């Protein structure tokens, strides 16, 4: 391990101890690095720990629930994204000014989406054009200390895909050939609008992220009942004067559990057996229903 990395591990440990919230095993990666789950073996402190004046700020964060189970009665789940700023230079009393800004983005697994548009053909509304986006996040929730346009400029937000306008949505190859940029923008906007209508693209209310003291922050993200299953990624960004100082990734798994997981998996893995069972169930239900009522009325 490089000496710089060892010092970093040190600081991470110090913060973890300070928080007493974060389990030591959660040390996670900063965004620009490829995501890894664990840092190397823990090493004893090699130098003076604690904040140094010349050090740069880093953000570390985690999610209250690592794994959410979607069961028969699932109606949604609230997750808490919390963290701390390492080497925080924030004054104790910000007096209403925003020294740092924190943005939390929770994103669902990207999937391919077909967007269709209807037109009036001889009085009947028919799907006439479509765009295939190869990769669209299934879920996208955003929480921030204040509104995004106050935090950073569009270029910075775009680079980090923060905000609905900057969600990464790649049209499949070949789409550009028959549609203008203007039309493509319409399809893009439709995805965001329809996802918002389904409560799958959400902006948490004002002050979605709140600070406690100089370095601790927290934000709650309410996963709706219809949140698509699959791993979620919680990205936390630390901003100062419109620039990203540091970023952090945490993961949440979202899995089907219980009877409908069994049924769903079964239907997709063994469709023939599932079909046979469906037919037999229908026969049984039909027969037992009529027998029950014949006895009642006889």
């Amino acid at each position, binding site marked *: 391990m490089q000496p710089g990395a060892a010092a970093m591990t040190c600081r991470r440990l110090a913060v973890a101890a300070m928080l007493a919230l974060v389990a030591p095993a959660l040390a996670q990666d900063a965004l620009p690095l490829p995501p890894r789950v664990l840092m190397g073996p823990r090493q004893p402190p090699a130098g003076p720990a604690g904040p140094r004046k010349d050090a740069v700020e880093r953000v570390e964060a985690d999610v209250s629930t690592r794994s959410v189970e*979607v*069961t*028969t*009665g*699932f*109606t949604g789940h609230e997750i808490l994204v919390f963290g701390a700023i390492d080497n925080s230079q924030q004054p104790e009393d910000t007096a209403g000014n925003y020294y740092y800004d924190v943005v939390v983005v929770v994103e669902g697994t990207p*999937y*391919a*989406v*077909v*967007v*269709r*548009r*209807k*037109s*009036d053909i001889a*009085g*009947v*509304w*028919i*799907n006439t054009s*479509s765009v*295939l986006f190869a990769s669209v996040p299934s879920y996208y929730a955003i929480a921030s200390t204040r509104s995004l346009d106050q935090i950073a400029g569009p270029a910075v937000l775009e680079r980090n895909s923060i905000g609905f306008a900057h969600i990464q949505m790649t049209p499949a190859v070949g789409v550009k050939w028959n549609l203008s940029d203007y039309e493509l923008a*319409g*399809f893009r906007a*439709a*995805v965001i*609008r*329809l*996802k918002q209508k389904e409560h799958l693209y959400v902006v948490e209310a004002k002050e979605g992220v709140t600070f406690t003291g100089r370095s601790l922050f927290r934000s709650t993200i309410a996963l709706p*009942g*219809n949140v698509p299953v699959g791993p979620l990624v919680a990205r936390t960004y630390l901003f100062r004067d419109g620039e990203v100082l540091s970023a952090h990734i945490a993961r949440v798994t979202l899995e089907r559990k219980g*009877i*409908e*997981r069994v*049924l*769903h998996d079964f*239907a*997709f893995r063994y*469709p*023939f057996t*599932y*079909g*046979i*069972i*469906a*037919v037999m*169930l*229908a*026969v049984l*239900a*039909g*027969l037992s*229903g*009529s027998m*029950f*009522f014949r006895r009642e*009325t006889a």
Partner: protein
Amino acid sequence: MNIYLPIAEMSVNVAVFLSMGCAVGFLSGMFGVGGGFLLTPLLIFMGIPSAVAVGTGSMQIMASSVAGAIAQYRRRNVDIKMGLVLVAGGVVGAIVGVGLVRILRQIGQFDLFVSLSYVLFLGAVGGLMLIESVGTIRRARSGQPVSARKTGQHSWVHGLPFKMRFNRSKLYISVVPPAAIGAFVGFMAAIMGVGGGFVMVPAMIYLLRVPTSVVIGTSLFQIVFVMAVTTLLQAVQNKTVDVVLAMLLIVGGVVGAQFGVIAGGRLKGEQLRFLLAALVLLVCLRIGWELVARPGELYSIGPLLGRP
């Protein structure tokens, strides 16, 4: 109480869907129809994806027809030979239909096709029934005798080859028309999530001249087997059969049908047909309106189907 539907992938209220099954069961018991033409549009209206509504509908129809088919069989009202010809045609129609569902879903025209089919069939059947029942009611009021159509006359149907003797129906006709009727009904079943009794029964009476006593039993026989095949095909090819949803509808439907039969017994045949025609036309108009009214949202999104 909410329950999560594993195939439709949504959380629904149990009471709402139980009572929906009950209401459709009541109407189908009252009019002696399968009720698929009411249930499938209702499910789509409630937000169930149309392909899942159609696939699950076939399972529900099967459950609601199986008891009737067995009862008719015991009363020797099923022409097994005719039924098998209808089933053979129906299976071919269902295979074609289920395959077409897959293609239509991939190109994004399934909803349109379902709506157009509904408007066309419900409009035609409802309109004919309305005219017929109003005529009968008028004649009954004016004191003229209410008589059935004359039977026994030969038509073009009797000139076709591959003749076969159907003993119970007392017919010696070509197998082509019953097989074609069966195929057409099987195709409709796969596309529209209906049993198709409302097409098969009139077709058997007026085209094939099958005696009325065996028409209902034989058509139920066909529906049970074709629906079993359709359910299986939809589960395998399109993965659109939601067992949990189907069970909710079946349980509600069985209860509702019992009361429907009692209510239906208090009304005259032509009155029932008039009410049914009105209901069919209402459903037709409702679906037709959706097609021509300017939608509030022109765009729709869906997952990519077919290609991996």
